[in-house]
């Protein structure tokens, strides 16, 4: 790794050497073992009970969490002084990826280790950590996070739940209803957000047994049925003053910072779920015979398998690249200081846009994956005897919680523009250059001798395209751009595709030479297949965006830019897809593990 640490959003305006990206091929022996322990645990101890778990036998979930505790799978983010391991993000992402084969169970795990544990880790006082952290990281207690209310979901700060200091000053009295609380049915510790004096948004650590807390009935859900989701009703719930978490009135910081990690981790988890679904689809395609042939021999099915493989390779590249970015950044912070977690939060916040990208991109890849895996199963995908049906139902929530994909899409350009305003990213200067490029014809020929030359040229061009569109939008709407959601969504789509494609290309470039020739061919194929998709998606978002922002001659000019900068020569695309699909079917696995 070079000295320079990439800033959040900076990927949009600079060239990045492949040596700078972290890839799954860079895992240490220890990290690989974390992955193996998790994978074996899930395969042997959770997957065989999934049907039971989905019938809401929550004892099995709680038992599973305790076993996770014994294996150390709950202590990765906790500080060493409290018995934690303080591992890097790449390790916790790998575990999140592997846990995801556990369906509903993995939702309980993710909520516990993410939104359930992190507020205490990041903001808890030594006294609070002494009291609760060991119970949480050993799995003795399960944890939950209560932000959403019937009247406030995306608008989390619009919460109605209230907190009032008791007359003797020893307790807060909490009132209100929290809704859709994961692990609600069996959690012992709840991080609850409420407004003190109807004004100061604040987090509280609330034990299940505190007077005035009631767990409501289980929701009847579309999927992740084995994950507990309940209302939490607070009726003059008595919370000791020492259980205020973080500063009074600063609850929003806790709520949002924890969500950054949550989004990133959700990306890892859904990427893992995509792999599981893909392999199920491949195996089925190899078994099912129609017209006296395996259906995996049909081009229509092959294309699905190839597209999904390339999409998942992109998800995986993206998630671990982001892990590397965060780990590099967080490693610069000196441990143990008083301001450690404040600096740590800032370090994560730096990449808030990329965390949102991880969530949106990977959850949408999973959505396509489960949809196509049902399709590969035909009618057998529609009945619950086969797991495809469950994958399909379980998937849907991932585009809703941890910030809906709309909220995350808005946040992506929002974060980037905010950085530009603060002078942290020279977006305006770069946009000027992009406009210049738009005016001047280019005769840059692609040098075929360089690995992934066409894909790299596309990347460079898509960055120019993003700058042209964002630049035009900002110029036209100035600080009112936030009201132009359709434009922001289009900008987000381009930014997402750029980050995904760049992660894909850089990973492939970095690791290529370590593989056999055969595998190199597969890698080139995956990159080509994904680059084609990225060029189409980014191009279509840009075209749409151009119509939204401009008209007349300027529109015509921008549209010609869209054509020029989203162009990608995908010669050999069909052969690439067949190669990927045939290798996947021969090996019956995701090819790039």
């Amino acid at each position, binding site marked *: 790794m070079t000295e320079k640490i990439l800033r959040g959003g900076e990927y949009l305006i600079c060239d990045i050497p492949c040596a700078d990206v972290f890839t799954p091929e860079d895992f240490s022996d220890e990290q690989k073992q974390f992955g*193996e322990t998790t994978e074996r645990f899930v395969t042997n101890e959770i997957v065989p009970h999934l049907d039971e778990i989905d019938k809401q036998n929550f004892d099995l979930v709680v038992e599973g969490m305790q076993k996770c505790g014994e294996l150390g799978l709950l*202590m990765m983010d906790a500080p060493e002084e409290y018995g934690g391991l303080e591992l890097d993000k790449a390790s916790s992402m790998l575990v999140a990826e592997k846990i995801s084969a556990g369906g509903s169970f993995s939702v309980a795990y993710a909520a516990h280790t993410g939104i359930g544990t992190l507020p205490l880790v990041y903001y808890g006082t030594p006294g609070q950590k002494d009291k609760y952290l060991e119970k949480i990281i050993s799995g003795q207690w399960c944890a939950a996070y209560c932000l959403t209310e019937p009247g406030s979901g995306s608008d989390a700060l619009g919460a109605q739940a209230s907190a009032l200091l008791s007359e003797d000053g020893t307790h807060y009295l909490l009132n209100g209803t929290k809704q859709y609380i994961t692990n609600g049915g069996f959690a012992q510790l709840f991080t609850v957000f409420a407004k003190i004096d109807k004004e100061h948004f604040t987090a509280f650590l609330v034990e299940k047994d505190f007077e005035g807390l009631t767990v409501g009935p289980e929701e009847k859900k579309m999927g992740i049925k084995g994950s507990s989701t309940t209302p939490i009703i607070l009726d003059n719930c008595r919370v000791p003053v020492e259980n205020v978490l973080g500063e009074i009135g600063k609850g929003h910081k806790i709520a949002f910072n924890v969500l950054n990690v949550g989004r990133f981790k959700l990306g890892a988890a859904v990427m893992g779920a995509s792999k599981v679904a893909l392999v199920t689809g491949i195996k089925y395609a190899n078994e099912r015979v129609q017209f006296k042939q395996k259906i995996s021999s049909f081009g229509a099915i092959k294309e699905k398998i190839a597209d999904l493989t390339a999409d998942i390779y992109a998800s995986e590249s993206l998630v671990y690249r982001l892990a590397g970015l965060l780990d590099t950044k967080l490693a610069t912070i000196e441990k143990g200081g008083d301001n450690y977690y404040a600096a740590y939060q800032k370090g994560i916040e730096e990449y808030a846009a990329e965390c949102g990208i991880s969530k949106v991109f990977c959850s949408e890849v999973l959505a396509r994956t489960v949809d196509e895996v049902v399709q590969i199963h035909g009618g057998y995908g529609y009945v619950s005897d086969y797991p495809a049906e469950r994958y399909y139902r379980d998937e849907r929530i991932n585009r809703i919680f941890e910030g809906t994909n709309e909220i995350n899409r808005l946040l992506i350009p929002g974060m980037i523009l905010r950085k530009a305003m603060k002078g942290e990213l020279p977006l305006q200067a770069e946009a000027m250059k992009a406009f210049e490029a738009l005016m001047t014809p280019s005769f840059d020929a692609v040098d075929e001798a360089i690995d992934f030359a066409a894909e790299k040229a596309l990347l460079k061009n898509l960055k120019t395209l993003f700058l042209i569109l964002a630049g035009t939008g900002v110029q036209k709407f100035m600080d009112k751009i936030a009201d132009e959601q359709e434009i922001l969504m289009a900008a987000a789509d381009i930014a997402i595709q750029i980050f995904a494609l760049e992660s894909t290309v850089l990973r492939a470039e970095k690791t290529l030479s370590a593989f056999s020739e055969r595998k190199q061919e597969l890698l080139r194929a995956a990159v080509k297949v994904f680059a084609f998709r990225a060029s189409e998606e980014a191009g279509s978002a840009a075209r749409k965006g151009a119509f939204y922002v401009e008209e007349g001659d300027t529109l015509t000019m921008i549209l010609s830019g869209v054509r020029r900068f989203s162009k990608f020569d995908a010669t050999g695309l069909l052969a690439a897809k067949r190669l990927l699909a045939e290798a996947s079917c021969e090996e019956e696995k995701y090819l790039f593990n």
Partner: protein
Amino acid sequence: MNILVCIKQVPDMESKFRIDASAAWFDTADLAWRMNEYDEYGVEQAVRLKEQVAGADITVLSIGPDKVKETMKKALAMGCDRGVHITDSDVSRRDPAEIAGIIAEYARDKNFDMIFTGMQSQDRGSGQVGVLLAEMLSCAAVTTIVDFSYREGRIEVKRELEGGIRASVALNIPALVTCQLGLNKPRYPTLPNIMKAKKKELLSLPVEDLRKLESRQQTARIYFPEKKGGGLVLEGDPARLADELIQILKQKTSILA
């Protein structure tokens, strides 16, 4: 008590195997590697023995290129105390006697009281290394054990025989056992133990210093057996299928003749 566990790194058996250019082994490119399944039972049993006998010390040994260290670290994370890695880039060409000879050369003056090996490796499957090693070290060996207990210098093991019969065998240590499926359920290394294993000793020794025996046999060729004539799939209405099947059996076999 001084315990030795011998482990081998083998490819993931779900891999797609290809025969390499020499035609004497498979192509190792792009494969995923793990601990030989039977060796995992060996490691687990050794760790259980250590948990029973205060002061016991487990050495885990593996021969192979640098990447076998990854597998050895797993054994250390499961509870072995130290590792001896015999560096050898040519391990897949060596015959069982040569391998056993290398280990014996290392182990001869170390006074091991108990040696655990797998009953065979999943990739080569000769099943010879354990017994050859015992012979070279002049200690007793019991193969394919499915149960193990230790008391006061004596071990009692069970072996599975054909026809659902078991044999119980008792012997004094020093002894070598080769471990079979069913012996135990290997633990998953916990994350804290994986981290602790990083600090354990992992010594590397060059194979040249220990290789005193020449190989006695060579694998001439490995190959996929030719497929026998393909099967026949009958499709359609079950009643008609039954008739069709009877016809075929009558014509092509003597079953219904």
